[in-house]
């Protein structure tokens, strides 16, 4: 039996979890409404689509990229599906797979341009965002209400959980989370993503399928954005081109607050869930407070992101120092010249079993 010691790399994740717990405890003490288990479950209900998108974003950020198109892809999915359902009278059985295919295809195109033409992810996904937003308004200038019976049934269906209830959307989000965790930590794909984020050059030299993985990461993000779009259209029962405005920022903020480093290679999908919950919690706290205006949400999320980034960079700096020292010490032992430019690929890609243990102890 190993003595329980908090791994250094789990500290940001733990900080996020503790912050969320403290925040929620504060809310529960202050406001009676938040003591209701339903209020807790509503955090998931209201942010199911954000969680799904953020999971996709986590993979992209872990690989060292960024995807700014997610909000626009969600909007496009809501508009396109609403149009196909209402105006064209297609069945959801056709529309939903079609939407998922569309999201994945958009992601794949962006990923291919990023990888094969070596254009910055930032620029390509920016163009993708403009493209998707614009396409929304080619389809429809007005909001379309969805009256499809299948969507309505799904939207209204409630699954009882300990006397409270959750809609199907939450179940979808949680299933995605579990699959994503499996993908990230137990498959070759996940490890390659971490390796690319740590150092793409090394990943390539190690013979990892960098090209395929990078394109797949953006495909996954596009696919999950489309899925989030479907969840969003079920949640709102309408499609409109201005839906999910600035959602990409919330998603990035959630990922960062969840402990993933924006430089790539370090972070956990599991943390993203707490990042999303914290963003949701801020909204709920400000709503319960009643006096603060809703725009404080943005300021709070911005500040929180800043704090987490600040802590991360301080953390990374000290970690880098330690790593350099150990590398230097090791090299000195061998009598080699100390090279301070050594960049090792992310350690987290190699220590999966420990994460496994961590997750088990927390479930």
């Amino acid at each position, binding site marked *: 039996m190993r003595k329980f010691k908090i791994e250094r790399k789990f500290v940001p994740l733990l900080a996020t979890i503790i912050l969320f717990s403290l925040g929620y405890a504060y809310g529960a003490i202050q406001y009676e409404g938040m003591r209701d288990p339903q209020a807790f479950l509503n955090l998931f209900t209201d942010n199911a689509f954000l969680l799904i998108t953020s999971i996709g974003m986590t993979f992209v950020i872990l690989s060292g990229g960024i995807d700014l198109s997610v909000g626009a892809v969600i909007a496009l999915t809501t508009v396109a599906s609403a149009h196909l359902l209402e105006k064209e009278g297609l069945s959801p059985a056709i529309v939903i797979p079609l939407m998922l295919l569309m999201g994945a295809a958009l992601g794949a195109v962006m990923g291919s341009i990023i990888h094969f033409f*070596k254009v910055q992810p930032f*620029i390509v996904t920016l163009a993708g965002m*403009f*493209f998707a*937003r614009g396409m929304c308004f080619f389809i429809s200038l007005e909001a379309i209400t969805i009256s499809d019976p299948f969507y309505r049934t799904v939207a209204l269906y409630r699954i009882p959980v300990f006397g409270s209830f959750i809609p199907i959307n939450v179940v979808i989000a949680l299933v995605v989370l579990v699959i994503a965790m499996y993908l990230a930590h137990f498959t070759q794909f996940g490890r390659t993503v971490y390796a690319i984020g740590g150092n793409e050059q090394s990943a390539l030299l190690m013979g990892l399928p960098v090209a395929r993985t990078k394109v797949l990461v953006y495909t996954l993000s596009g696919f999950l954005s489309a899925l989030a779009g479907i969840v969003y259209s079920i949640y709102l029962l309408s499609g409109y081109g201005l839906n999910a405005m600035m959602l990409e920022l919330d998603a*990035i903020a959630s990922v960062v607050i969840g402990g993933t480093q924006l430089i790539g290679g370090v972070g956990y999908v599991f943390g993203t869930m707490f990042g999303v919950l914290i963003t949701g919690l801020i909204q709920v706290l400000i709503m319960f407070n009643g006096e603060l*205006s809703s*725009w404080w949400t943005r300021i709070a999320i*911005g500040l929180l*992101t800043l704090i987490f980034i600040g802590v991360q960079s301080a953390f990374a700096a000290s970690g880098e120092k330690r790593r350099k020292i150990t590398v230097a010490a090791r090299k000195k032992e061998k009598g080699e010249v100390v090279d301070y430019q050594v960049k090792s690929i992310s350690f987290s890609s190699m220590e999966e079993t420990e994460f496994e243990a961590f997750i088990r102890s927390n479930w």
Partner: protein
Amino acid sequence: MSKLSWKHLRDSQLFWPVVALALIMLFNLIFIPDFFTLEIKDGHLFGSMVDVINRGAPLMLLAIGMTMVIATAGVDLSVGAVMAISAGAAAVLINPALGKTLIGSDKLVEDITATPLWVVILVALAVATLCGVWNGLLVSRANIQPMVATLVLMVAGRGIAQLITNGQIITVYYSPYFFIGNGYLLGLPFTLFIVLGVFLFAWLMTRRTAIGLFVESVGINASSSFFSGINEKNIKLMAYTFCGFCAGIAGLIVSSNVKSADANNIGLFSELDAILAVVIGGTLMSGGRFSLMASIVGALIIQATTTTMYALGVPAMAASAIKAMVVLIVILLYSEQFKDVLGSVIERKGVQPS
């Protein structure tokens, strides 16, 4: 034309942007007959071309600031939010209601200002510059990645703007303020002179002093610049400060143009437009060599595309899809890999006949 000067021309950073602009203009010449008609009404010049310049002024200003930031291998995502902040500050200072107290509507729409106009402009620009300083400090002193550091203000900035305007869309009724965005000087839009002024200032600072060289040096390699005795931190700080300042002016122009300050919508997505303008202008996102003039042409390309879309009757929001395609093509043209593919195709064609 001799071969040498042709190559020289083609290697210039300005070449491709100008070609792209010319192509768009050619398209307009063929498909929109009255695009190039200029007429003089009340001593002012009117026409689609003037419109491109007038509407494109905020974007050109942002592009100038953004060029400096991108040249230092950074990026400023907060310019849109900074525009909203500066517009909000100006509107609150002008409007006697100060965005808080309720007053009668007759008093609200009076053509007066609560603060002298020069104070309004000064404060708005100072606030915007301060935002730039904040970004600069985060990037240069706290060593946070530029994209992330400015993302913070991008997220929080609109909240701050809402806070300033108390969540209201403040309408301005003070007519001298409108001159900034709508006025005419010597028959030309006043905004053109603002852009010219800022451009000349930036050009003189970067091309007639060593600052431009320092900026490029920092963009290419910050640490080696540091070891060469360049204060890379201050150069970065300066670039972000200047970018904030430019965003402030752009915010004033936009709010003066629409005669109101809407914290949610002023400068929405303009950071993206500004970055695209710079990238189209051929300044690499990885920093280094930059050209202010090329960025201006980049901004004109974006604005001309937008105006063309409107002239063709494409809805405002839908136009962005076409804009995205144009931008993507331009960016692909710049990509070395794409050039290689294109080059190999052309070469093969050339080889085949023999």
